[in-house]
């Protein structure tokens, strides 16, 4: 799914200056960065309510290139700057986490199989 499609489905706006043609393979909805580190796969979109620097650093670590902040949460300039430096697209939607994930799922986006072995 392209970033431009995600923006359309979620009526989202973009906080960073990046291309809308970027294509992602799967989705993940999560506020717990430890869970993102444990289960997230690369090249997916992360939907989160965590609007902080650590959310961006976590995405940088796991090669997640697109983040959607839910419930109209606004990232600080510092967060946007870090995302731009890391080449991460930041979007914002007015939908809640549940609604936003549901809308993307309905449009055909899926999550990845997770491995619970520790």
């Amino acid at each position: 799914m392209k970033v431009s499609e995600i923006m359309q489905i979620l009526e989202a706006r973009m906080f960073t200056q990046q291309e809308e043609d970027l294509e992602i393979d799967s989705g993940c909805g999560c506020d717990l960065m430890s869970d993102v580190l444990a289960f997230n796969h690369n090249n997916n979109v992360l939907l989160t309510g965590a609007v902080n620097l650590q959310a961006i650093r976590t995405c940088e670590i796991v090669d997640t290139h697109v983040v959607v902040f839910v419930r109209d949460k606004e990232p600080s300039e510092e967060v946007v700057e870090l995302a731009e430096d890391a080449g991460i697209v930041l979007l914002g939607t007015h939908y809640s986490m549940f609604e936003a994930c549901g809308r993307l799922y309905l449009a055909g986006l899926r999550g990845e199989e997770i491995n619970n072995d520790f």
Partner: protein
Amino acid sequence: MTFNYVVDPEAPERAGRASTRFKGVLKELGVSPKVIRAISIAMYEGEINMVIHAKGGTIRCDVDPDKITVVMADVGPGIPDIEQAMKAGWSTASPEARELGFGAGMGLPNMKKWSDKLLVETELGVGTTLTMEFNLT
């Protein structure tokens, strides 16, 4: 080749810089993406632990032809019960750490999951040293 980093306890918002920098080094060295991912995730969890549980510390990364070793040494309270700390879901993190999305009790389990070998040496009131090995072959 050895790379050294310092984790500053006074700037928790910077936690993760060492891991992202070393990730860049590994990319330049041409290490496989799978190994880079494992090292980055495990090192990042360690870095977060150093900030939320200890008073910062140092990280030493040794790159050898057959393996990469990451040694993370903190000055902190030490871990009273390692067995419990290794359990997924167990955490003693502060509300502040939880607000950042951490403290879910996945730190050490994640480090164990992503590394090929994990050694935890800890002394109460002195600190904890984690040694992780990642095989390149």
